[in-house]
Each structure stands twice: as C-alpha cells, then as structure tokens.
C-alpha cells in the first residue's frame, strides 16, 4: 500500500469512538455520541432502528462523505445532523451545543434541485435570507446588498449572467449549481449534500466536483456529503465513512490523505484508484452478506 494512504479500520460492533483520533474539544464540530434512531415508538419498542450506534467525531471544517447501499439510513443520518429529527438514544452535539431542533447553521441540497419555478435564479438563491435570522428582519433594507452577495456566489459557480433567468430556463447542471448557492447564501457552518450530483451526466458531475471543491477550499465550512459514487467521495472528502444497510451503522472509516488541492487528474493516479478499490471491497463484502441473509 502506498505511503500516502493510511490504514483503514473495520469497526468492531458497538461504539467505535476509541478508534478515532483524539481531538481537542474546541476542534470538534460534529459529535455523535452513540446515537440510535427509531422512526416511531412502535419501532423503538421492537428495537428496529433506522440507524444505530453512530459514533462520529468531525473536526471543524472537515469534509466527510458517507457512502453505502441505498436505503441504509444515510438520509436519516442527515436528518439527525440537521436537527430535523432527534435521536431515540444518545446525543448529537454540533458546534458545542446539543441539537434539539433545526440548527439554522446548516444548508442543504438534494439530488433534485427543487428550485421554485416562479422565482428567478437570484430570488431562489435569496430565499434562505428571507427565512433565517438575522437576515430575515433586515431583508427589506439590505436587499441590494444581499442580492450583490448572491450574484457573487452565482458568479463563483459559473452562473454569472443567469441571475434573472428562471430555473426552467437552465440546464440540470446549472440548476444544481444554483441549488448549492441557495444552500450556501446564509454562510452556513455546515453544508449537507444528499446525492447532489446523482442525476447529472458524468462530465457535468466532475465539473461540479471542482466547483464544490473550490467553494470549500475558499470558505472551509463543514460538509457532509452523502453519495453512491465512490470516486466522488474519495476525490472530495477528508474522511469517508461506509455505512451498512439495515440497521444503518458505520462499518468503515477511511481517511483520505491525498494531497490538496486536488485536481481531477488525481482521479487517474494509482493511489486514488487504490482507495476507491478498497472502499469498493468493503461495500461488495456488505452486499454479499446482505444477499446471504436474504436467502
């Protein structure tokens, strides 16, 4: 194995915090402490959890990716991290505070861009500022200032000149860029992306990887990226977590220490391929187990 690649560790069952590198409290941003979630009381009584025994420690500004088979609880994990759901057991601590409701410091983007068709691209990007404080109360007075900020953000992702177009006049890739701008306009500390590039063609997808990489390099917010695409996860993330299916739990944690900034060229190096291959191995093993159980 190449020197630039660290050992990955397969987790034993149960809490896995011990394997994580120790972090000082002030470096910690996301801290899941033995988190279990059942969707309702009935399922809780039957001990059927959507995700279980999640222990996760993420540094300030770290880019993590979560990969796993579909239906493995990745989206549930996102809901926990944003405070849309509270855990049945355990604690979620983000930015030093226990999460008890929607955080307002996070932005989200999904596979579907879900822009509002009656608003222009610019107005779509401005939407969060009409909702989240402190922008909300100043929105009328400072609209011009905010619009300028949105225009700058749109230029950064290559959408300069499309501000006044409606979403349905943009291509899929452009809509997704606008959707990411909308997730970032209120300068969130945490960006959550749920398979954001899943519906795009391969070339557009790689372009958007670079867009996301540049935005992250510039602002260093925390990112949680949920994806099916192993190359995407290895190219973008500092740490990749592999999640198993029902019950959803993290089975592998893999630090990616390919040098940054990463260029698309890196995806053709043997080091990169080795990591992708290794992750593929974990997922393949899991799928096989799943198949055996099914029989």
């Amino acid at each position, binding site marked *: 194995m190449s020197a630039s690649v660290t050992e990955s560790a397969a987790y034993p069952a149960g809490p896995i915090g011990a394997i994580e590198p120790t972090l000082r409290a002030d470096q910690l941003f996301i801290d899941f402490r033995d988190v279990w979630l059942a969707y309702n009381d009935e399922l809780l009584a039957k001990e059927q959890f959507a995700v279980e025994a999640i222990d996760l420690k993420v540094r300030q500004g770290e880019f993590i990716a979560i990969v796993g088979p579909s239906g493995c609880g990745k989206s549930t994990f996102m809901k926990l991290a944003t405070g*849309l759901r509270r855990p049945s057991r355990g604690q979620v601590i983000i930015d030093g505070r226990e999460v008890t409701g*929607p955080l307002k410091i996070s932005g989200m983007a*999904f596979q*579907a861009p879900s822009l509002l*068709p009656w608003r222009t691209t610019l107005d779509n990007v401005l939407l969060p500022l009409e*909702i989240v404080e402190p922008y909300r109360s100043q929105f009328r007075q400072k609209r011009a200032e905010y619009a300028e900020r949105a225009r700058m953000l749109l230029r950064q992702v290559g959408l300069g000149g499309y501000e006044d177009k409606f979403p349905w006049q943009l291509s899929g890739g452009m809509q997704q860029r606008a959707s990411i701008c909308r*997730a970032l306009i209120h300068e969130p500390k945490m960006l959550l992306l749920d398979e954001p590039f899943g519906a795009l063609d391969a070339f557009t997808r790689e372009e958007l990887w670079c867009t996301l990489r540049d935005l992250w390099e510039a602002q260093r917010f925390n990112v949680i990226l949920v994806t099916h695409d192993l190359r995407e996860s290895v190219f973008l993330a500092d740490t990749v977590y592999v999640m198993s299916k029902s019950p959803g739990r993290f089975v592998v944690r893999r630090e990616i220490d390919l040098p940054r900034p990463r260029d698309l060229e890196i995806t053709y190096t043997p080091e990169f391929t080795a990591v992708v291959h290794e992750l593929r191995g974990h997922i393949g093993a899991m799928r096989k187990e799943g198949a055996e159980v099914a029989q």
Partner: protein
Amino acid sequence: MNRKWLERLSPLVLLVLIVLLWELICRAFNVSEFIFPSPSAIWTKLLEFHSVIAQHAWRTFWVTMVGFAISIVVGVLLGFLIGSSRLAYTAIYPLMTAFNALPKAAFIPILVVWFGIGVGPAVLTAFLISFFPITVNIATGLATLEPELEDVLRVLGAKRWDVLTKVGLPRSMPYFWGSLKVAITLAFVGTTVSEMTAANEGIGYLLISAGSSMQMGLAFAGLLVVGAMAMAMYELFSFVEKHTTAWAHRGSQNH
C-alpha cells in the same frame, strides 16, 4: 402560420358552422318557432327584447358575482385549512365530498324558507355550487409540496407559516386560477337554477316566464346571454391565469 391561425379561429369557425346548420334545418323542415326557433328568430327576439334581457342579465350577473366572491373567500380559506393540516384534511374532506354530492337545486326550497324569494337564495346557490372546486384545488396545491423543499426550509428554522406563504401558496396559484375557471361557470348555473323557482328577476326568471308564455325565441335568447356571460368570465380568468402564472404553462408556450 396558417395552421396556427386555423387553430386559433377554430372555435369561431365551428360556432358559425353549427349556427348555419341549425338555421338550415329549421328552414328546410319548416320547424315551428314555438318548438325550436331558428338562430335568426332568436336574434330577432334578442334585439326586440334587448332592454328587458339586459335588465335580467345584469341582475343574474351581479348576483352570480356576489355568490362567486363568497365562494372564493370561503373556498380559499377552507382549502388553506385542509391543505395545511393533516387533521383538518382527514376530518373535513369526507364530509365535504358528501356535501358536494347533494344536488344544490334541492337546497333552494330551504333557502327560500330562510331568506325569502329573491337575491338571497340565488347568491347562496351560486356559492354552494362553486366553492368546492376552489377548495379542492387550493388544498391539493398545498398538500403536494415536495418533502425535500420543505426540508430545505425547515433546516433554516422556517415555521409552518413560512413554508406555506413562501412555497405553498405561490405553488397553488395555477391550481387556484384553474379552479376559478370551473367555479365561475358553475356559479352561473347556480344563480340561473335558483332564479327559475325563487326570484322575480334574473335570466332564470326570464326563462321560466318566456317558456310559460310560449316565447321560445326569448327563452333561447336568455340562454344565449347566460352562456355568453359565463364564457366571457371564463376567458377573463384564463387570461389572468396565463399572465400571472406563466411559469406553470411554459411547456405550452414554448412550442
């Protein structure tokens, strides 16, 4: 270009053809004016009685508009309630469907007992018959919000109200305008039916009195006027719909 014009003019062309055929049949078979008047006979009556017809038509028009206005207010509020709360949806929807299945004409005798002959029953019949489509459409527009979009906003700490006003309502506008087009025609039906038994004025009353005195030409002229008014209002809402919610009709406009 030619094809486009043909498409645009096609309703007019069809109308002219039907009128011509009608006239032709009446003349060819020498149909009595007391049974089935020809278009030209109807037109003569329309001119002859134009001031009487105009007076009754105006009455029917404003009565319908009052009933329709009430049904917009009630329809939107009820639709908002049903669409924004699952409990309200479950509780109200079945009852409302049952209510909608009742023939509204059957309410008229009761309304006459309560409000007497005249404007009251007509306005209320117009309202009762036309609020349902508005309610259903607003409720559907609100209830079919994409969950992802809702999450995007809720993560920001958006309250229910924010989601409804920023996304739900604008999103249901095309449904709303669409429902008005259906509702206005129903409202005219309601008013006319009510006037037939419970009024001394209005096109409905005119139809009944013309019929009972064998003035078939006049009765048909009355029908023509109601049809024209409903059609004009329909086109008005159609126009407003196209110009306020163009984003929802982009497919048909681009081609």
